[in-house]
């Protein structure tokens, strides 16, 4: 990724930040917002490699922590690990079909959600049995659906020659 592509990449990440903290509130359904940062992380990690996935995960996770009322570092860890795994197994994952893209994002969101929850019960959030049903599951489904047009758009922006 050089020159113009690096600039476009930084601009896209910036656009995702605005989408996450400003726009996502207006498209929330029953108070549930899609995770735009996770969509960007999964897309770029699957296209790149382990190292890129880890670094992007740490950066996006840290940004997410900064713009949240939670503890700094929780999302950075969860996103870092998710980016690492996505980058590591990118070669073995079929990511062309709509259904597989939905499943990849859905599973990544479940993984990040569970990891965040496990980490946060030791630090701040009150333990509640129904958070999986009330937050993790609907967020993952919504993020999976929103990811489909974004994946298509990002592929056209960055990997048209493929």
């Amino acid at each position, binding site marked *: 990724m050089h020159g113009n592509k690096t600039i476009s990449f930084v601009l896209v990440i*910036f656009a995702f*930040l*605005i989408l*996450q*903290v*400003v*726009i*996502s*509130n*207006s498209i*929330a359904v*029953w*108070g*549930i*917002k899609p*995770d735009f*940062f996770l969509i960007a992380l999964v897309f770029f990690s699957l296209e790149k490699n*382990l*190292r890129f996935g*880890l*670094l992007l995960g*740490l950066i996006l*996770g*840290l*940004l*997410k*922590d*900064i*713009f*949240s*009322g*939670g*503890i*700094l*570092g*929780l*999302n*950075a*860890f969860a996103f*870092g*690990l998710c980016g*690492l795994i996505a980058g590591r197994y990118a070669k073995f994952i079929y990511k062309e079909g709509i259904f597989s893209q939905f499943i990849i994002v859905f599973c990544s969101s479940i993984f990040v959600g569970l990891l*965040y*929850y496990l*980490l*946060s019960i030791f*630090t*701040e*959030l*009150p333990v*509640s049995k*129904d*958070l999986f049903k*009330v*937050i993790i599951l609907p*967020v993952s489904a919504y993020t999976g659906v929103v990811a489909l047009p974004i994946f298509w758009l990002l592929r056209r922006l960055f990997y048209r020659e493929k």
Partner: protein
Amino acid sequence: MVSPKRVILIILLLCLPLLIIIIPRSISNKAKINVVSLLNPALKAGSFVGFNLKQKSRKSQTLDSLINERDILKKKVADLSGELAELKEASIENERLRGLLSFKKASRYKLIPAQIIAGDSTNWHRTIIINKGTEQGIKENMPVVLPEGLVGKIIQVDKNLSRVMLMIDPNLKVSSLVQDSREAGIVEGSGRPGLCKMKYLLPQTTARPGDIVISSGLGEIYPKGIIIGRIKKIEKDSSGLYSYAWIEPAVNFSKLEEVLCMAIKPSLSF
């Protein structure tokens, strides 16, 4: 095959966030709000773009519905609809601001109006960022209200912006009272979008669905008598030691645009 050096580097990088987690909250919060401050112009630009997108989508919906009309009429109606949408938006905003103003005049506390410029980036926490900070008199732990009721409290402050923790955040706890039965309890966010939980009611509580819950004034942050919401349902805790109530907040958190920060001194809270 990944070399051992790279494995160590990866492990170190992954451990970095775990080290950040143990930084004292006061320091990390300060750092967080400073970074948000740096990105404030971009957030404002983003809010503006978001607002315009909303307006445009409204206009395009109007145009879609007129697609079968005659060309001239279609154009006229589209123009008028656009104008109407703008006027309606202005009138709604006017009404909202008028409501805030009359509430501000009637209140015995100094109220600082603020606009919301961003929301929380996660679904776990319910916080918002407002465009007023220390320079406008905002301080940490100030209650944030609307004429309808309690919104939350200020948790981080910078020069020109602050972060508000909303009533529906699981980490916000408010000492409260059921207005009719005078039973005391603690209201906190439930994690469920749009619902709070009032804990520690008596096992044989006399509170009923529909009862109004207000702040009790204990704790020196929220003055007594601010409406929190209405009881939706009462259930018994599994331990049997107390009952709890699901509260529907008086404020509609999905439609927040402006809020009022309440400048009170601890001595005034009783």
